[in-house]
């Protein structure tokens, strides 16, 4: 296990290095400069400022400079937010995104599993069709439509919840709901099909034949096995959702990181693009690793390859 973990860690660092390198050079292909006042400055004035930031150096030198700082843990300063440290920007913005994402994942998973279980148990009844319809709608309606509707009816018309902004738990409810729709739909669909498959398998029949009670079969045997694919799904989905959604953050005026990432690309804010990309990558790589470890715990049939079993 130790050997396996070390090997995985090595590959994780290597992956990060490759991501950093590719992103750096791709990013430099973006047209324009990070100057916010670009259209007003004469070419000579632009050169002056780019010189000061070292952006006129040959690319390989810029790359080495960046990587040297990166290894020392320095993500640099933002261009768009004059002289603000990128690390601080990420730290400030990840909080709201992660909180929303976490709530959406927890709520969405619970509701999704419930829906999936109901659909599977009441297979081909009105319950099943209702759950399936909800799942299909959840996947196919874009989140901005759903968010817009929630905001209009619950916020403006009925005034049950705040319309937008970020000032406390009640402000998180509508965006959480909007975000969780996709989670509910995805989880419910997987849960339904997995559970149907498991329920038809031999070991469930055996348990029934042995006279094990229906609730025990369901919780101990069927659900546990049906959950395995959900975990594979949830890891990346959680990272995806907790790193912020451009649309939801715009509509509900949330000071999150998803919107910031898109804007940094639009404004050529090089250091911020690199910082957020690397941050996302670290999260993603870490989660994939954790999911792999979790597999073994939940299902003894799956053991990590290359592990030394003694």
């Amino acid at each position: 296990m130790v050997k396996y973990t070390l090997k995985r860690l090595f590959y994780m660092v290597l992956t990060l290095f490759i991501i950093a390198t590719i992103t750096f050079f791709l990013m430099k292909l973006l047209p324009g400069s990070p100057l916010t006042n670009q259209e007003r400055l004469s070419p000579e004035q632009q050169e002056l400022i780019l010189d000061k930031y070292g952006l006129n150096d040959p690319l390989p030198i810029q790359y080495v400079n960046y990587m040297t700082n990166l290894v020392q843990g320095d993500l640099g300063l933002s261009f768009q937010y004059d002289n603000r440290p990128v690390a601080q920007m990420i730290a400030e913005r990840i909080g709201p995104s992660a909180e929303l994402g976490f709530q959406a994942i927890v709520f969405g998973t619970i509701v999704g599993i419930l829906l999936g279980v109901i659909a599977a148990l009441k297979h081909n009844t009105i319950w099943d069709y209702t759950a399936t319809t909800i799942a299909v709608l959840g996947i196919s309606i874009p989140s901005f439509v759903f968010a817009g509707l929630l905001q209009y009816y619950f916020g403006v018309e009925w005034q049950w919840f705040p319309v937008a902004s970020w000032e406390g738990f009640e402000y998180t409810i509508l965006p959480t709901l909007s975000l969780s729709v996709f989670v509910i739909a995805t989880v419910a669909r997987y849960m339904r099909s997995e559970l149907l498959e498991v329920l038809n398998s031999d070991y469930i029949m055996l348990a029934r034949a042995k006279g094990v009670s229906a609730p025990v079969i369901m919780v101990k045997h069927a659900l546990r096995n049906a959950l395995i694919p959900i975990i594979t799904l949830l890891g990346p989905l959680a990272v995806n959702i907790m790193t912020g959604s451009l649309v939801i953050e715009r509509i509900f005026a949330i000071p999150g990181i998803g919107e910031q990432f898109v804007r940094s690309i639009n404004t050529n804010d090089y250091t911020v693009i690199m910082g957020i990309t690397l941050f996302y990558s670290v999260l993603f790589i870490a989660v994939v690793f954790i999911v792999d470890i979790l597999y073994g715990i939940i299902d003894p049939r799956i053991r990590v390859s290359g592990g030394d079993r003694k």
Partner: protein
Amino acid sequence: MQKKKLSIFLVLMLMVSTILAACGGGSSDSNDSGQTSDNGGGENNVLNLTETQDIPSMDSALATDAVSFNTLNSVMEGLYRLGEDDKAVEGMADGEPQISEDGKTWTIKLRDANWSNGEPVTANDFVFAWRKALNPDTAAEYAYIMYDLKNAAAVNAGEMTPEELGVKAIDEKTLEIQLENPVPYFKELLTFATFYPQNEAYVTEQADQFGLEADTVLYNGPFTMTEWKHEDQFVLQKNPEYWDAENVQLETVNTKIVKDTQTDVNLYESGELDRVKLSAEFVDKYKEEEGFQTIKEASVFFLRLNQSSNDVLKNADARKAIAMGFDKTGITDSLLNNGSVPADYLVPAEFVQGPDGKDFRETAGSYLETDQAAAAEHWAKAKEALGQDAVELELLSYDDDVSKKITEYLKEQLETNLEGLTVNIKLQPFKQKLDLESSMNYEASLAGWGPDYPDPMTFIDMFVTDGAHNQSGYSNPQVDKLVQDAKTTLLTDEQARWDALVEAEKLMLEDAAFAPVYQRARAYLTKPAVEGVLYHKFGADYSLKWTSVTR
């Protein structure tokens, strides 16, 4: 089995603890922000606004964007500040400047005024801030706005030391400014954020933290910033140290960062906002409501016509045909619908007045008005001269929704009115479009320009031969001469200078150097309780110093 149960238990524990941790974070959030939202809503002299993005920095030397200018205008003050009709009124300066005979030396007395920490604002604060803005190490993107100061360009290029800049403190309360040339609008220029003072001791002490947080800046304006949650909201409170505090009525200004117009409108509807900026699709719904108003901006949009590489656009008849060949009201009344007006000009209406007190547009005429018959005639001549029956033209534009609609409309109009013309639309992201324009790698392009300073020159010198912003290869020696004179020999004769600028614009439009499209405006819906917001045509969009809210 035992081991497995333990691991499941551990996983569960982990999940529960994360949930608890997340909930803990959430509730503490609501505690500190509860105070700010309590202050909002129905109180007198509390104003609730939104901006579409956060302030990049509170360092006035680095400001480049509208949000920074708007906020700095509330919390800082230069020698003068913009008042009614964009005229400079007293700020840190006590009375009118003493101007030397040749107009190149300005001596300004400072009033007794304090920074928000109680220290006096001195002449050295201006000297320090201006040297800092022009110091190449600062990399200030608006440094060029100060190039009228003596030696400023050389200092900014690193050829002279900042100490050689033409500004000095004669004593604690007297500032002497040396100019390269007399500048007719210099008093108004001094209201611009780059000219604000900064307290040297404080800035040095804060070092790289200066301007990053609400409590790492010193304020000398009508308000101070008391809270700044990045990307979320910021709060301004009346500044008790401000010299004119008795005339400031607002107690609190809450500004939230809201990027979506629909969200803005919803917040306004639910009573959390006092003013909302409307985009075209909302104007019809609200234009009959009390508090609806449109504010003309000094931004003019036009088609750049690349005359250096494109044979068709080298032909003056072809350019005239394009400039006259589309109906501008379709863009202003249907697509924009926010008070924007058709433009047959370059220097915007209601922007500057001449020595005779008349608006520039009243003195200057109207040219290149839409005239389909004349356009068709010019087009026929152009095609004959080119020996072509079918002409293709690429039209470059921004990739946002509004520009996209305008570009499609232009294509339809031009193709209908100019026989044999095919317009190919090319939409590009902002930065890419700028690159294509500055490398002149385009044929025609929808572009906009707003003023840097309150003078027609900020528009007119754009099109001098090889000017940095000409970007179309247009060249007319007569225009160059007029602009050169207006910048040098005519500076002391205001009327002659004004006539030269009027003439230069006329020549450019007669050449159809570009095709004017519209002058932009913004539509606002403001709660009737709000009074006395001043709107400006350059620098900050508005001033809140004289604003009051009576609910």
